[in-house]
């Protein structure tokens, strides 16, 4: 690992200042993605800014019909939260399926969403559950957030502060996990809201996405039968050593039906 300056501010305003005054800074959350990247020398930032001591980035609270999860809340805390489980069990289940217990004790929701790994789990929740990404500058709608492979709408100097999830009537997450890493070869979130059904797929494309034809069918009837015959176009999906695009397209359908079957 290359040397760097390490900062551990206790206020968000100081993070902004350090970001502005450093040559090539990086935010450090749980470090579960960033530190392996530094160890492999795939990145060599001049400054690391540790977000762990900023009090208002931590914790989970409920506000009217939303649950608000601070960016620095670790996966284990989301998985074990009674508040999250009562609000949306699918979200707690998803967090409990990330990696392994030691990874879940360090990795954070903000870090995962900012990193936008195509095989990460949280992006399926952000899109499928219609979340809003709150930053130090603005609120970003989920549909505008994931813009490509490891790419997001975050501007340089922008810090995710919290994720806001509205309450679904019911939701389910199903994942075909990579047996070694735990990442999603494919993961599918389905959710029913008052007016509309939503569905999001992670692991299959360059970034998580919503298959709109499926959502329309599910809005008409929230049953596995409603999506019978619908397909995903493999040309728009990823092929790699783990799975071909055609295989991913098929697994996504199986998982979607399984998820709907579990709640309808």
């Amino acid at each position, binding site marked *: *690992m*290359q*040397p*760097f*300056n*390490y900062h*551990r501010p206790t206020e968000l305003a100081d993070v902004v200042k350090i970001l502005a005054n450093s040559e090539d800074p990086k935010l*450090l959350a749980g*470090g*579960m993605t960033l*530190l*392996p990247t*530094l*160890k492999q020398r795939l990145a060599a930032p001049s400054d*690391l800014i*540790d977000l*762990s001591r900023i009090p208002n980035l931590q914790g989970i609270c409920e506000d009217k019909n939303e649950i608000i999860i601070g960016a620095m809340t670790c996966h*284990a805390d989301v998985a074990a939260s009674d508040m999250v489980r009562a609000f949306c069990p699918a979200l707690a289940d998803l967090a409990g399926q990330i*990696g*392994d*217990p*030691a*990874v879940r*004790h*360090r990795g954070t929701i903000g870090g995962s969403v900012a990193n936008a790994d195509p095989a990460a789990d949280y992006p399926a929740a952000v899109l499928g559950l219609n979340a809003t990404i709150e930053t130090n500058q603005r609120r970003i709608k989920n549909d505008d957030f994931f813009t490509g492979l490891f790419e997001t709408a975050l501007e340089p100097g922008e810090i995710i502060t919290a994720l806001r999830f509205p309450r679904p009537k019911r939701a389910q997450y199903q994942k075909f996990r990579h047996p*070694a*890493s*735990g990442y999603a070869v494919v993961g599918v979130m389905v959710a029913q809201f008052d007016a509309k059904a939503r569905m999001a797929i992670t692991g299959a494309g360059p970034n998580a996405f919503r298959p709109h034809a499926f959502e329309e069918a599910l809005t008409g009837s929230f049953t596995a039968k409603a999506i019978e015959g619908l397909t995903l176009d493999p040309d728009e999906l990823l092929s790699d050593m783990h799975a071909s695009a055609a295989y991913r397209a098929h697994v996504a359908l199986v998982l979607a039906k399984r998820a709907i079957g579990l709640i309808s």
Partner: protein
Amino acid sequence: MNISLTINGEKITRDIATNLLLADFLRDNLRLTGTHVGCDTTQCGCCIIHLNNKAVKSCTMLAVQADGAQITTIEGLAGANGALHPVQEAFREHHGLQCGFCTPGMVMMGADIVRRLPGADEATIRHQLEGNICRCTGYQGIVEAIMDASSQAKGI
């Protein structure tokens, strides 16, 4: 950078490089070589320690991130009088190790599982061990040991 932390009950202050990993700090600077480095890529769990009572992989943390923390390593798990921790005792009883390389991490993760999930069943324990790799035992003795310690913790 100067850091102060408590390791196995002892207060320690050191001046270290910011890019020093916690696992290397424990092994090289403090000579606590019970914490093993098996993969250095966050996969194997040999380097697991307890940071503020939670199992974490010390190969994927900077030592400076642990400033102010309470850390327990495998060296500090047994009681002050040398009495083995129930998970250590159960590993001996159930033959939960062969070469012993994965064992510090397995025991530290086992203690974390027993704390969080007393009375956990076999499937849960196997799922919880997803981040710990053993090249020798086939896991059977490890799972039996943690199940035994876990049911004792629940008073089953």
